[in-house]
């Protein structure tokens, strides 16, 4: 399911004194089965952009095409629900959406809203708990008795249980420790590779972009300023610095080495790539 933006603009609180333009002239295609990372400063419009992907927001100008559904400013608010089942959204700090008395019920909540039977939903809950790396024993516990990292996984399981085709994650590892970050990102990568999920990731962590994404969208002041593969985007270290976007550690390190006279065929993005390229240049 491709998602296409055509001349999309979005303005908050149109017609009030607080009117503010959050997006303008967005033209973008997010391909089926791709892993896209969206980067940019806080306030650059990333979160507004992704809320168009499951029709939580409708464009104030232009059109968003999600699979075979076309969303325009005139689209009726009803009947948007099927889109939200197909495009699952994990908000930042998603543990704040937990509310049920047990983990199982909370995970089953989403699918049941989309008409899946209770029995089937609870069965999915059991699957999803394993998928996000938790033990069956948590199913009957209150989600509020779990640790922060476990709550985060339950919340993600709650979205996965809807069996979406597209998974949007807004900084899914914010506030977690390195181990938790690695686990969550590993899980996302598995979902992408094994379950063929289209993944859209908002992140500040350039390492994650370099390691997992195959397309990067760079946003600034409500517009898209660059789209490309991680290597294309990260090759120009100076451009990244000018935009104050943060440079992946490998690229930054390689950049220092280039200044010292090292040469690389292409900009290395991970330490293994860098090591491979360094090997022939060392005694």
């Amino acid at each position, binding site marked *: 399911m491709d998602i296409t933006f055509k001349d999309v603009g979005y303005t908050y609180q149109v017609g009030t004194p607080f009117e503010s333009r959050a997006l303008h002239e967005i033209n973008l295609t997010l391909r089926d089965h791709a892993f896209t990372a969206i980067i940019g400063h806080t306030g650059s419009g990333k979160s507004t952009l992704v809320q168009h992907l499951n029709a*939580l927001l409708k464009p104030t100008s232009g059109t968003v095409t999600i699979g075979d559904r076309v969303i325009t400013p005139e689209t009726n608010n009803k009947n948007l629900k099927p889109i939200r*089942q197909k495009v699952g959204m994990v*908000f930042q700090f998603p543990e*704040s*959406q937990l*509310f049920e008395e047990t983990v199982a019920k909370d995970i089953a909540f*989403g699918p049941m809203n989309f008409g899946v039977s209770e029995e089937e939903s609870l069965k999915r809950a059991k699957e999803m708990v394993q998928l996000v790396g938790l033990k069956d024993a948590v199913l009957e516990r209150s989600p509020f008795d779990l640790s922060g990292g476990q709550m985060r996984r339950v919340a993600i399981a709650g979205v996965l249980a809807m069996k979406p085709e597209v998974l949007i994650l807004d900084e899914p590892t914010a506030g977690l420790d390195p181990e938790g970050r690695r686990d969550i990102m590993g899980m996302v990568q598995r979902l992408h590779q094994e379950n063929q999920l289209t993944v859209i990731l908002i992140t500040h962590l350039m390492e994650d972009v370099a390691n997992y994404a195959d397309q990067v969208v760079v946003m600034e002041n409500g517009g898209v300023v660059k789209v490309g593969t991680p290597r294309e985007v990260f090759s120009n270290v100076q451009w990244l610095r000018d935009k104050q976007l943060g440079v992946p550690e490998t690229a930054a390190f390689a950049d220092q080495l280039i200044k010292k006279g090292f040469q690389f065929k292409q900009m290395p993005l991970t330490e293994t790539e860098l090591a491979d390229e360094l090997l022939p240049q060392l005694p």
Partner: protein
Amino acid sequence: LLGRFIPGDSIVHRLDPRVKLLMSFYFVGIIFLADNWQTYLFLFLFTMVAILLTKIKLGFFIKGVRPLIWLILFTVLLQMLFSSGGTVYWSWGPIVISSYGVVNGIYIFMRFVLIIFMSTLLTLTTPPLSLADAIESLLKPLKVIHFPVYEVALMLSIALRFVPTLMDETEKIMNAQRARGVDFGEGNIFQQMRAIVPLLIPLFVSSFNRAEDLATAMEARGYQGGEGRSKYRVLSWQLADNLTILAFALVTVVLVILR
């Protein structure tokens, strides 16, 4: 962000919030004195002068009437239809439109409008925080009867400080649940009631967690009750404040004479 305060530099803006608060209470009191067209006209003129002094457009004041418009129309209509006396213009069974009724209706309308204008004047010209300070300051005498003034003031300021935070949070949770297939405000009454469960529980839980964090931070910064605390924010009473009180006193005298 909060409330309806419109920043400005008028003489009304600069008045001590305590004076504005007290006088807006007092105004509700003296409006009971109005009982004929002279008194109503006088109060109307007085209110208009006050509004003029704020340098804020009249439209903002009229907006304050909007939420009560049905109550106003309903009250005015009942007054007009069911009070008898004077010349009868039209009647049908118990329903009578008389000159007395029409005049009464107009008075009631004026009463509504004047009260709303005056309290709107307060909220438009006074920042929320100043009003909170004023409330605290005016509660202070209650310390004599062991009323927990400091604690209440602190709660009030915490409440004000967290309203925008919780507004954002509410919005966020609603979006998250919408993404999980919840429709807010749609369907029959039971569906609508069911829809708020996934909103309310997270809100209560998050408020509780925030409060715990906040309490820890407060204690880490040496908060041990209201005793012995000093205050960073101060209010200062000036000549204009005394003059305002004088003006209201004069209005009262005039009203009594005009009655």
